[in-house]
Structures are given as C-alpha cells and as structure tokens.
C-alpha cells in the first residue's frame, strides 16, 4: 500500500469548470452508498416498518471506526510519523478553533443560549467519521489518490472541539467556568475515553504497530467488505436523518442556513490548511471534508452529560438532518473541486 492510495494519478484537466463539478456531484449521487441513504430517508418518511436492530447500529459503528482507524494506522506505519505530524497538528488546531468563531455567530445571529451555542459549536468543530469515509469512497471512485494516513486527522480532530465547545457552553467567555465542575470533567473524560475516540485511536495505534504484515491478515474483513458495510450503514443513517426531518421546524430557519453555510466555510478553510501543510489534492479534500463535517457520535454523548441544559434537538438535527446529507451529497465533490483548483 503506497502512501498515496492509488498509484494511477489521473492527469487532472486544467479547465476545471462547473461541468466537472456537476459531473462529480452526479456520479457521487449515483453511488450505492448515497442511494442507500436516500432509500433510508424514504423508508423513514413513508413510515415503512423497516427498522434496524440497535445492536446492528452499534456493530456497524464499531466496525467502521475500527476499520478506518486500522487502515490509517498502517498508512502511518508506511509514511512515517515525520510525514504525518504537521498536517495532523494543523487539523487538531483547526478542530479546536472552529468553535471559537462558531459560538459568537450562534449567540449573536442565531440568538441561541450560552449552553446551546456551546453545544452546537462543539458538534461542528468535531468531526463525522462516516462523512470522512464517504469522502474516501468518492476519491476512490474517481481514482483520485490521497494520503491514506488521513484518518489520523480524523482521530485527532474528534476531541479538541468538544472540550472547547463545552467550556464555551459553560460560560467560559463570561468567566463563569469552573474546571472543578463535574460536567467539565465528564466532557474531558469522554473526549479522551469515549468509544469513538478509543476505537479510532486504538485501531490507529494497532495498525501502526502491526503494519502491512498485520494488514495482510485482516484485509479480508477490514477492507474487502468495507464499502458495502458503509452502504448498509448509510441506509440506517438515512432512516435516522429522515425521522429528524420533522424537527427542522423546531430547529428554525437559522439553523438550516447555518447547517449549510458552516460546512461551506469550514470546508474551504480545511482545504486551504491542507494546501499549506503540503497535502495532495485528495488529502486537501479530506481535510476540508473533516472540517466541514459535524459530529454525531462522540459529541452528542459528551455534550449531553456536560451541558444538560442545552437542547439536543438543535445540535442533532443540525448535524444529522442538515449538514450530514449536505456533505455526503454536495459537500464532498465540492471540496474536491476547490482542492483541485487551488492546486492548479
């Protein structure tokens, strides 16, 4: 496995035009994974009796996090820490910073309470593993190489934003924050030991330790069926998102606008950061997607326990019913186009 996952680098045409973007979006929309997401939304909206057992949802989550972490770890093993640390550090900082500008916007323009603004900021600063996976699939389908250690960025971006967002939501700006507060301790703990982070970071380390030899052993499980498992998972995510569509009214127009413009801004910043830290077009796309994505595995649990007065409807509806569908359908090919042009 080379550092850039696909050897064949398609000579990217110069006249990257709106046509290119539309073609990319269209081909993305016709991939099985996205179509299964749409089927899930339809199942929820039409009130079909299709239901995934909770155990299946947990199992798919465990599988996807473990697989993506492990593959990234093997890539880190091959690329060496030397190549990874700089963009990883930049990614981490980006995650920590996003809540700092998101929070005031939510307070001022969105009129959200301190707790709600902190909670939403935490979700949008943290990242969504499934969005990341969908982006790697998109890159593979168009034969665009990328740094396969990019899932290391995913791993380090989960926690920082949650910690910063919770502190903001606890009133850090008003000087009301107490580090002895049980909620803050909970958030710090969950940010490090929550199952999302534990599986991603753990599998990453395992991959880095066992390297390509380890990969040979478990490839038939962590690689061969991977994309199909993602399709099944997106069917379930479609149902979850579809069931939340009804909450859009409660969430209000501002949140809908925010749920689309935040990823646009963060994604562009992410791509730029990738450019500055020397990532390829594929790598820039992935960093953009990570920045644009909003967490719905790690953040909700940590935030619910540490900012109980925040209404989870806002952050979950924004992350799941607005930003997630936007990113996997339009965001991913869009950030790829931006990365391509900026590299040109």
């Amino acid at each position, binding site marked *: 496995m080379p550092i850039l996952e696909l050897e064949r680098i398609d000579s990217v045409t110069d006249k990257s035009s709106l046509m290119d973007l539309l073609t990319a979006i269209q081909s993305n929309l016709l991939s099985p994974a996205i179509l299964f997401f749409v089927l899930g939304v339809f199942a929820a909206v039409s009130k079909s009796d299709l239901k995934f057992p909770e155990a299946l949802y947990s199992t798919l989550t465990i599988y996807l996090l473990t697989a993506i972490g492990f593959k990234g770890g093997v890539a880190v093993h091959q690329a060496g820490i030397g190549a990874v640390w700089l963009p990883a550090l930049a990614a981490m900082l980006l995650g920590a910073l996003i809540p700092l500008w998101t929070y005031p916007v939510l307070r001022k323009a969105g009129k959200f309470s301190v707790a709600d603004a902190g909670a939403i900021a935490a979700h949008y600063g943290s990242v969504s593993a499934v969005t990341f996976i969908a982006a790697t699939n998109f890159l593979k389908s168009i034969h665009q190489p990328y740094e396969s250690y990019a899932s290391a960025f995913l791993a380090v971006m989960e926690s920082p934003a949650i910690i910063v967002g919770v502190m903001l939501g606890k009133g850090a700006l008003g000087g009301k924050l107490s580090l002895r507060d049980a909620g803050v301790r909970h958030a710090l703990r969950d940010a490090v030991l929550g199952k999302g982070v534990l599986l991603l970071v753990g599998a990453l380390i395992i991959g880095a330790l066992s390297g390509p030899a380890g990969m040979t052993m478990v490839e038939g499980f962590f690689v061969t069926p991977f994309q199909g498992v993602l399709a099944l998972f997106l069917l379930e995510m479609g149902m*979850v998102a579809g069931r939340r569509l009804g909450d859009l009214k409660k969430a209000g127009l501002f949140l809908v606008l925010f749920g689309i413009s935040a990823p646009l801004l963060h994604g562009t910043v992410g791509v730029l950061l990738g450019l500055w830290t020397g990532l390829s077009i594929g790598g820039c796309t992935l960093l953009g997607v990570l920045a644009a994505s909003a967490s719905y595995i790690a953040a909700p649990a940590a935030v619910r326990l540490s900012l109980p007065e925040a209404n989870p409807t806002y952050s979950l509806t924004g992350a799941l019913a607005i930003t997630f569908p936007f990113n996997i359908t339009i965001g991913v090919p869009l950030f790829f186009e931006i990365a391509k042009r900026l590299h040109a």
Partner: protein
Amino acid sequence: MNPNFNTPPAMNLHPMKRVTIICESILEDRVLELLQETGAQGHTAFPVRGGGHQGERCADITETANVQIDVILKPAIAEALLQRLQTELFADYAMVAYESDVRVLRPDKF
C-alpha cells in the same frame, strides 16, 4: 374496600418499595452512582424505547435510546431517592420515575 380484593399478605412476606426509573441511556452511570449513595443494594437495568414530553425516543441510535432501571429498596429510602432524582436530574433530562409496593421473602437483602 372489598376484603376479597386485596388478599392479606402472608406472614413471611415483607414490604419493600420498587422504584422504577426510565431515562436517557447516557444517564445510566449517573443514576447508578446516585442509587449507591442513597443506599440501594442492587439494581436491574435494560434498554427500552419510549415517548413522552421530550418527544419520541426510538432507540435506533444510542443518542435516542432509553434505559429502565428497577431497584427494590427499603420503604424508608424510596422517597429520598425519588427526591434526589427530581432535584438533580428531572429538569434537564428525558426521565420518568415512580414507586410501587412489592413484597419479598428476604428483607435483609435490600
């Protein structure tokens, strides 16, 4: 009250309270800590779904799943437990709690 209606409890059965708590899964550990502080000697828990004032909780993802926690305890501490639940958790979380009367053979166990 119709005397046939409530059969008189047998001599060997001892009155206890059962407190039932239904809440967001995420709270399980906090509720268990609280039980221990109140003096409960055990508990039983299982995942449930449901709906109430905070909307449907359909348990398809962990974030919207509920847990039901049943605890048998001495009548004296049942209300204290409910009061603590109310003060510390009722306001912020999706949650329902109630107590009922039960009878056991080994009162010292609880």
